[in-house]
C-alpha cells in the first residue's frame, strides 16, 4: 500500500500543482489568501467580531488551516474563531500546549480535533475538552505524555464517535474507562497494552465498527470475545499473540500482520458481509492452505501477503475479484505463478518485488491482467525479454523496474547493428505515467525508444553508464514533470545544452559528480521554475516557512549558526542535507574561514563569505 502511495504521489502532486496554476482561483480563495498573507493583515480583521461570528464554518476552517501553514496562528488568535470553526487539525505541531487547548475548549461548534503527534500535550492539557458536547472526532495518537488520568477528562464527551489513542501512555485500566463512551464507532488503541480483560469489558461499546488493537496483549481468549461486537467491520490485530480468530460475520477488513495464524474465521463461516480486505504481512501460517482456502474469500479485493511464508498458493485460484495483490518478499516463483494465474480482470495493483520471479512469469501474466495500473517488479531478475510481455497490458500507469537485469537491448553483439532496442515495445503503453529504471544495466543509446511514450510524466534513471546523450534523447517527451538522472556521467556542457520539457518541475541530478556548481547555478538561473536536486544545490522547498527554514543564513539565526560553523564546518554541512563527501577542508582553508568570521562582516553580506560556504 505504501509503495503504491509513494509511486503515485510523484505524479499526483505534480498534477495538483499544475491544476492550481492553470485554473483561475475564485474570489473566496483570493480572500483567504489576502486575509492570511501576513500578520498585519490578520490584525486588520481580527477585531471584526460580529463578522467573525457569522463566518461560515468551512471558511473559518480554511482560514485556520492557512494561518497554521503560514505560522501565523497562536493561542490568543484562536479565540476569534470560537463561534465558527468546526474542524481543527494541529497534527504534529510541537508548539501546541495547554494554552492552545484552553482556547480550543471554548470552541462551541468544534466537531473534529486532531492533535496527534503534538509532543507538548499532557494530561492537564486535555481538561478543557471535558464536556465539549459538539466534539465527535478526537485524535490524540502518539501524544506520549497522556496517561490514564488524562483520559478521564474525555469521558464526559458523550457524543464522541471517533477516538484515536494509539501509542499514548494509556494502560489497560485506562482503556476500561472508555466503556462509558457508548457512541464510539471508531476506536484506535494501537500500541496500547490492552489485555483480554479490558477487551472483554469493552463489549458494551456495541456501536463499534472500527477497532484497532495492533501490538496489544490480546490473546486467543480476548479474540474469542470479539464475536460480541456485532457491527465490527474493520479489525486490526497485527503484532498480537492471537492465533485463532473466531467467526466474525461482519468483518470486511482484517489485518493480522506479524501474527502466527492457525485459523481465521473458525468453524462454518456464514458471512454477513464478505471479507474484502486481508492484510497478513509477515504472518506465519501454521497451514497456509487450510487457513486461506477455508476463508471462502471469493470477494476479496485487497490481499497483502508480503513477507509471509506460504507453502501452498492454490487459494489464489479462487480470488477472481482481486484489485490489489501484494506479494513482496514472498516465495512466489515462475512455476507457482503459472499454476495460480487466472483472469484477474479487476486487478489494478500487483507487487512482485524482491521475489524469485523472472521474465517467464511475465509471459504467463501477460494475458491475465488486462486492467492492471501498477506493476512493481523491482529487485527481481526480470530482464529485457519481459518488456514485450509487459507492454501487452496497455492499461499500465506506473511500472517499476528498478534493480532488475534490464539492459535496454536484446542481442549479445557489441555492435549497434546486432542490438534490438527492447523499449520499443513500450510505445503501446499509451497511459504510462511513471517509469522507474533506477539501478538497471542501461547503457547509452538504449533510451531512445522511450521518447515514444508520450504520456510519460515521471522517469527515474540511475546508472553509471548513462551520459549526456541519454538525457538529450528524452527531450522530446513534452509531458515530463519529473526527471531523475542520478549518478550519471553528465557533463556541464551536456546540462547546459539540455532543453527541458515545458512541464518539467523537478530535475534530480544527485550523484552526477562531473557537474560543477557554476554549471548548475547557471542552469537554475535559466530555468527558474525547475527544482534542481544536486549536492551543489541548497535544498529549499518553495512553500517552506521562514520559521522552519533550514537555511543557516536566515536573518534571525545568522549569528548563531555562523558561530557553530566556525567550530565544525563539516557537521553543519551535513545538517543542511549537504552530502558531498568529496569536499575536504585543508587547515589553511579553515584558518581562512575563521579569520573571515572574526573580522566583523555585516551579517547579510554573503559576498564576503568564502566560496566554500556560500554554496550551502
Amino acid at each position, binding site marked *: 500500500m505504501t509503495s503504491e502511495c509513494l509511486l503515485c504521489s510523484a505524479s499526483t502532486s505534480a498534477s495538483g500543482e499544475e491544476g492550481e496554476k492553470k485554473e*483561475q482561483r*475564485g*474570489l*473566496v480563495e*483570493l*480572500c*483567504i489568501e*489576502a*486575509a492570511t*498573507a501576513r500578520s*498585519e*493583515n*490578520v490584525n*486588520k*480583521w481580527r477585531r*471584526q467580531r460580529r*463578522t*467573525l461570528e*457569522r*463566518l*461560515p464554518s468551512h*471558511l473559518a476552517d480554511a482560514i485556520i488551516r492557512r494561518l497554521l501553514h503560514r505560522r501565523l496562528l497562536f493561542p490568543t488568535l484562536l479565540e476569534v474563531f470560537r463561534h465558527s470553526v468546526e474542524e481543527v487539525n494541529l497534527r504534529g505541531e510541537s508548539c501546541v500546549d495547554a494554552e492552545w487547548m484552553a482556547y480550543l475548549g471554548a470552541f462551541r461548534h468544534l466537531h473534529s480535533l486532531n492533535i496527534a503527534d503534538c509532543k507538548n500535550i499532557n494530561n492537564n492539557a486535555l481538561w478543557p475538552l471535558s464536556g465539549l458536547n459538539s466534539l465527535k472526532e478526537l485524535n490524540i495518537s502518539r501524544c506520549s505524555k497522556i496517561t490514564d488520568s488524562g483520559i478521564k477528562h474525555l469521558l464526559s464527551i458523550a457524543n464522541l464517535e471517533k477516538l484515536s489513542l494509539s501509542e499514548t501512555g494509556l494502560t489497560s485500566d485506562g482503556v476500561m474507562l472508555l466503556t462509558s463512551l457508548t457512541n464510539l464507532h471508531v476506536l484506535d488503541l494501537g500500541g496500547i497494552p490492552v489485555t483480554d480483560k479490558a477487551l472483554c469489558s469493552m463489549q458494551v461499546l456495541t456501536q463499534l465498527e472500527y477497532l484497532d488493537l495492533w501490538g496489544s496483549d490480546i490473546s486467543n481468549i480476548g479474540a474469542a470475545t470479539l464475536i460480541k461486537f456485532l457491527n465490527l467491520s474493520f479489525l486490526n490485530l497485527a503484532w498480537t499473540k492471537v492465533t485463532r480468530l473466531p467467526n466474525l460475520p461482519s468483518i470486511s477488513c482484517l489485518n493480522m500482520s506479524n501474527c502466527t495464524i492457525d485459523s481465521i474465521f473458525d468453524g462454518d463461516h456464514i458471512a454477513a458481509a464478505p471479507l474484502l480486505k486481508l492484510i497478513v504481512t509477515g504472518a506465519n501460517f501454521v497451514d497456509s492452505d487450510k487457513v486461506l482456502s477455508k476463508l471462502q474469500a471469493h470477494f476479496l479485493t485487497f490481499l497483502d501477503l508480503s513477507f509471509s511464508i506460504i507453502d501452498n498458493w492454490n487459494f489464489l485460484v479462487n480470488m477472481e475479484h482481486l484489485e490489489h495483490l501484494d506479494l513482496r518478499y514472498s516465495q512466489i516463483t515462475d512455476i507457482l505463478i503459472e499454476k495460480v494465474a487466472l483472469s484477474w480482470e479487476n486487478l489494478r495493483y500487483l507487487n512482485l518485488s524482491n521475489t524469485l520471479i523472472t521474465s517467464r512469469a511475465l509471459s504467463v501474466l501477460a494475458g491475465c491482467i488486462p486492467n492492471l495500473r501498477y506493476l512493481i517488479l523491482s529487485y527481481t531478475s526480470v530482464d529485457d525479454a519481459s518488456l514485450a510481455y509487459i507492454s501487452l497490458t496497455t492499461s499500465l500507469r506506473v511500472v517499476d523496474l528498478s534493480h532488475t537485469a534490464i539492459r535496454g537491448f536484446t542481442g549479445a553483439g557489441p555492435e549497434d547493428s546486432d542490438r534490438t532496442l527492447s523499449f520499443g515495445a513500450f510505445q503501446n503503453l499509451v497511459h504510462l505515467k511513471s517509469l522507474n529504471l533506477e539501478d538497471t544495466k542501461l547503457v547509452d543509446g538504449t533510451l531512445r525508444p522511450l521518447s515514444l511514450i508520450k504520456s510519460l510524466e515521471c522517469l527515474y534513471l540511475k546508472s553509471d553508464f548513462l551520459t549526456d546523450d541519454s538525457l538529450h534523447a528524452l527531450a522530446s517527451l513534452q509531458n515530463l514533470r519529473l526527471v531523475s538522472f542520478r549518478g550519471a556521467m553528465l557533463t556541464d556542457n551536456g546540462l547546459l545544452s539540455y532543453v527541458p520539457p515545458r512541464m518539467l518541475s523537478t530535475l534530480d541530478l544527485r550523484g552526477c559528480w562531473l557537474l560543477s556548481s557554476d554549471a548548475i547555478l547557471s542552469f537554475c538561473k535559466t530555468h527558474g521554475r525547475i527544482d534542481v536536486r544536486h549536492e551543489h544545490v541548497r535544498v529549499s522547498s518553495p512553500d517552506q516557512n521562514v520559521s522552519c527554514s533550514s537555511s543557516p543564513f536566515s536573518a534571525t539565526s545568522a549569528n548563531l549558526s555562523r558561530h557553530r560553523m566556525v567550530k565544525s564546518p563539516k557537521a553543519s554541512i551535513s545538517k543542511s542535507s549537504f552530502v558531498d563527501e568529496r569536499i575536504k577542508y585543508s587547515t589553511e582553508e579553515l584558518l581562512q574561514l575563521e579569520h573571515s568570521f572574526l573580522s566583523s562582516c555585516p551579517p547579510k553580506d554573503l559576498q564576503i563569505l568564502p566560496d566554500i560556504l556560500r554554496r550551502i
Partner: protein
Amino acid sequence: MKKEDTVKLISSEGFEFVVDKTAAMVSHTIRNMLTSPGSFSETQHGEVTFPEISTLILEKICQYFYWHLQYASGKETEFHIEPEITLELMMAANYLHT
C-alpha cells in the same frame, strides 16, 4: 449598451450597480437566478437585490467580475484586496459562488 445585456445589482443600502450580464455571470448564484426557467422577478427585470451585501463589498465584487474576465482572456494582473474587507468579501463571494 442594450438593456438586455446588462443587469442591475442592488446593495443593502439600495445602491445600484449596472454591470454586463457576462460579467455578472461569473457568479454561479447570479447565473442561476438569471437563467433559471420560470418567472422570477430577477429573470424578468434583470435586477438582483442583495440585502446582505453592503455597497462597498458589492462594488468590490463587480470589480472582481471584470478582473476575472480579463484574467480569463490572458491578462494576468493581480487583484488587490484590502485586508479590512477580506472577511466580508469572503462571505459575499461564498454566497455568490464566485
